[in-house]
């Protein structure tokens, strides 16, 4: 595991005269620049690019501060930007995809933030999230310039090939590109933003539109490196460590991504899916704390919005009952031991309500009233449910985080006697992860299950959903290289799934639906 992390590492910047331009920029900048000129009949000043990501293992655990194993993929979002110099600045957005209608809004002259209407589901809201986090970064970076004066007006042309609602995190790609662009537009060519800063400010961006996600997607999009996957950690601090796959004897380690083409809009289904899961794991952490007589966060840390999480519970439990008062620093061996202990506690204290906790059940275990629990836990964002399945969700988070640690050990083992060893062991972890996502977290869907079973019986060693689930993409560990069976898997999926489910699918769509992703470069800039 190369130790360098992204503290001072700068987001890569290229220009037309750069000796060798990274492939994504070389391939895609010319066309977006042409489209910009035809839309605004002016040349853009620069193009900001940020990729989508696939997550090999560790789903729905980033918002509990547990580490994950994503890698940036060859699909990305580009924003061609021209900085304007108007007295009352405004931002005009045009998207190559007609589905996203053209938008224009003015920048408040007093330098205040552009308001985001959280009750509305629109692509421009995601632009405004990137704009907001960049604006607050600039207010701290250069208060004299941005405290009470508006940002620069912009003309923006957006084009991306990360399929939306596919679980490859098109929203994070878009937000990171926008944040990078807004900082570059307002600080000028002389300022070079660090990856760490871009990652830090974008991990919370989607909260402004009401999606309470963790930071995996943005971290992978910003810190992606060619031929490197990423070990992203959120605690003790936010860190993304690139690493190469182990060298096997006669196979390459490659991951096939297959899109179920079932679109799942994280925002609109949030009340019954994504945001509900965040409420469930937060509640589980607090019920565990109440049962074992520990306080998740002391008076200072806790607040009406910060209720602590399952990683906090693990820490205060070990402080109280094992006299280890420093929080877990991510060390693998002690992590495996503690997560195993957590799974025991979950069985002990939550297994008696497998049918789910009603609001009254939870209020009783937390020793507070119905109204109190509702006010404190259910008003952070809209939710709708019959019961809260604390047992299943907590069991998934701890077992999935345990699997990530085991996966990291595999990835950092110098060598394997037989390639089969790696594929078998890593594949097993992925299959367990899929089972847990399906049975415990209930975020799979029939199409995902179908694709996984087909892939597994056609050469994939490990198949699972990737991203939030409820549709979107799946990822498969398939031996690559000459005698690999990538083609075999693609063949099987095409015939047994795509042509069956989508009889009228075109070859191009099929081409796009199944891809072999090489870890790609993270966010970068191309200055004209």
């Amino acid at each position, binding site marked *: 595991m190369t130790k360098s992390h992204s503290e001072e590492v700068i987001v890569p910047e290229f220009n037309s005269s750069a000796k060798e331009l990274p492939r994504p920029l070389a391939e895609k900048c010319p066309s977006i620049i042409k489209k910009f000129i035809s839309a605004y009949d002016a040349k853009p000043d620069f193009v900001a690019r940020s990729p989508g990501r696939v997550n090999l293992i560790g789903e729905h655990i980033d918002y509990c501060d547990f580490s994950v194993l994503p890698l940036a993929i060859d699909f990305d979002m580009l924003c061609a930007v021209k900085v304007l110099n108007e*007295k*009352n600045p*405004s931002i*005009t957005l*045009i998207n190559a995809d007609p589905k996203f*209608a*053209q*938008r*224009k*809004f*003015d920048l*408040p*002259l007093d330098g205040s933030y552009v*308001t*985001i*209407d*959280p*009750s*509305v*589901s*629109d692509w*421009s809201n995601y632009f405004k999230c990137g704009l907001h986090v960049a604006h607050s970064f600039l207010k701290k970076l250069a208060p004299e310039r941005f405290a009470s004066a508006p940002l620069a007006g912009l003309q923006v042309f957006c084009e991306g090939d990360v399929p939306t609602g596919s679980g490859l995190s098109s929203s994070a790609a878009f937000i990171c590109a926008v944040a990078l662009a807004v900082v570059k537009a307002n600080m000028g060519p002389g300022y070079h933003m660090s990856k760490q800063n871009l990652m830090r400010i974008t991990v919370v961006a989607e909260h*402004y539109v*009401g999606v309470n996600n963790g930071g995996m997607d943005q971290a992978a999009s910003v810190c992606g490196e060619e031929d490197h996957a990423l070990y992203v950690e959120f605690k003790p601090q936010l860190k993304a460590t690139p690493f190469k796959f182990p060298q096997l004897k006669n196979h390459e380690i490659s991951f096939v991504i297959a899109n179920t083409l079932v679109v799942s809009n994280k925002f*609109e289904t949030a*009340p*019954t899916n994504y945001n509900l899961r965040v409420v469930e794991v937060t509640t589980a952490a607090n019920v565990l704390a109440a049962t074992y007589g520990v306080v998740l966060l002391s008076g200072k840390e806790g607040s009406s*919005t910060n209720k602590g999480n399952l990683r906090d519970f693990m820490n205060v439990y070990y402080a109280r009952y094992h006299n280890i008062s420093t929080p877990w620093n991510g060390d693998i061996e002690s992590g495996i031991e503690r997560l195993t202990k957590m799974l025991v506690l979950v069985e002990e204290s939550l297994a008696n309500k497998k049918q789910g906790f*009603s*609001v009254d059940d939870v209020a009783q275990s937390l020793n507070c009233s119905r109204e109190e629990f*509702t006010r404190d836990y*259910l*008003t*952070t*964002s*809209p*939710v*709708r*449910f*019959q*019961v809260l399945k604390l047992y299943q969700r907590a069991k998934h988070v701890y077992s999935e985080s345990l699997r990530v640690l085991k996966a990291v050990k595999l990835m950092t083992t110098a060598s394997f006697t037989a390639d089969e060893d790696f594929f078998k062991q890593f594949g097993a972890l992925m299959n367990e992860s899929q089972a847990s996502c399906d049975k415990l977290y*209930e975020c799979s869907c029939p199409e995902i299950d179908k694709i996984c079973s087909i892939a597994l019986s056609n050469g994939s060693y490990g198949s699972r959903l990737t991203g939030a689930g409820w549709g979107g993409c799946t990822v498969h560990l398939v031996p690559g290289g000459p005698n690999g069976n990538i083609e075999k898997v693609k063949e099987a999926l095409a015939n047994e799934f795509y042509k069956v489910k989508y009889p009228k699918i075109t070859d191009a769509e099929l081409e796009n639906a199944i891809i072999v992703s090489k870890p790609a470069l993270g966010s970068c800039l191309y200055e004209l």
Partner: protein
Amino acid sequence: MDYNKRSSVSTVPNAAPIRVGFVGLNAAKGWAIKTHYPAILQLSSQFQITALYSPKIETSIATIQRLKLSNATAFPTLESFASSSTIDMIVIAIQVASHYEVVMPLLEFSKNNPNLKYLFVEWALACSLDQAESIYKAAAERGVQTIISLQGRKSPYILRAKELISQGYIGDINSIEIAGNGGWYGYERPVKSPKYIYEIGNGVDLVTTTFGHTIDILQYMTSSYFSRINAMVFNNIPEQELIDERGNRLGQRVPKTVPDHLLFQGTLLNGNVPVSCSFKGGKPTKKFTKNLVIDIHGTKGDLKLEGDAGFAEISNLVLYYSGTRANDFPLANGQQAPLDPGYDAGKEIMEVYHLRNYNAIVGNIHRLYQSISDFHFNTKKIPELPSQFVMQGFDFEGFPTLMDALILHRLIESVYKSNMMGSTLNVSNISHYSL
């Protein structure tokens, strides 16, 4: 939950934006600068401010400069303003007391402006039922599409409650209780508060404003007007104590003729549902109750809306729902409302709907303008969308018009009448509009 789909109209439409003429937009003070202006800003290419009129032209000029309204012209007279062809929509955002004397001549002069399509008037559309009836008739004759700012109907919480009720989540409505609070009308009056809102007849008081907005919202959510109502209006505080900003009494008392308490009870036309309302004037007390509570009890579940201040139309509310979804509930339009997959029918569903950082004051007006542009540019591609409609009534689509306002005025008129006559009135006919 599909009401919250943003209109797909591009905020940079290929067609020209709606040109807006404001009566009452003043950069320095007032309601429009705090709400209409920021809303238009967010929809900057669907609406363009092209004309301002105010009795003193200097105010208009100063506002154009302050807000850098590059396409706006300040008009010296109401006539020149009303007849200018550079205006597609006129927005009236002045004191209710001057609505009548401005809108009537304005409609007359506007006959010289063939482009005028929309007339947007702030609630409470004139100070009396007669004035409201005359304005409504004049606008109808003039043939403009009218809009009234009963923006509570656009609140995401109200729309979600309406959805839950209409999809059978609480079964039949069994009873409703409302407790509200109208801030200014208590024992103390801030010295800077404008005198006219304390004098009866200016169209701004506890009944017309606080009760008006809330009861319109209730009818909209339950899709029902009232059949019988009874009201008791109180002025138990004929004199208020003047206080400074920090709340200290200045030892000076000022007369108040507007009411400081309203008792209202009635039955809804649909289902003879008992409704009990109590609106209190005065500083909202935080002691043991919230300042706005709407409880709707149904055979299959309960709905509750709560707000900190008593003004439902500008508060960031919290919606609580708990009930067993009646999936066998034959929907009004006959088809079966799909129960979300994964719910088993018998079990109780709980929903809490709150958007922590929603700015209701600007947001609701913003969404009202959005619904106007949706209509104007027919963004939802509704086949044969009529060029005009008389009233929103209880539809999800569209926006409230002067007819909706007129019906509300008739209800408020009967509130005062019921109090004066000491009798329960049958109001089931006030919702039939007659040209």
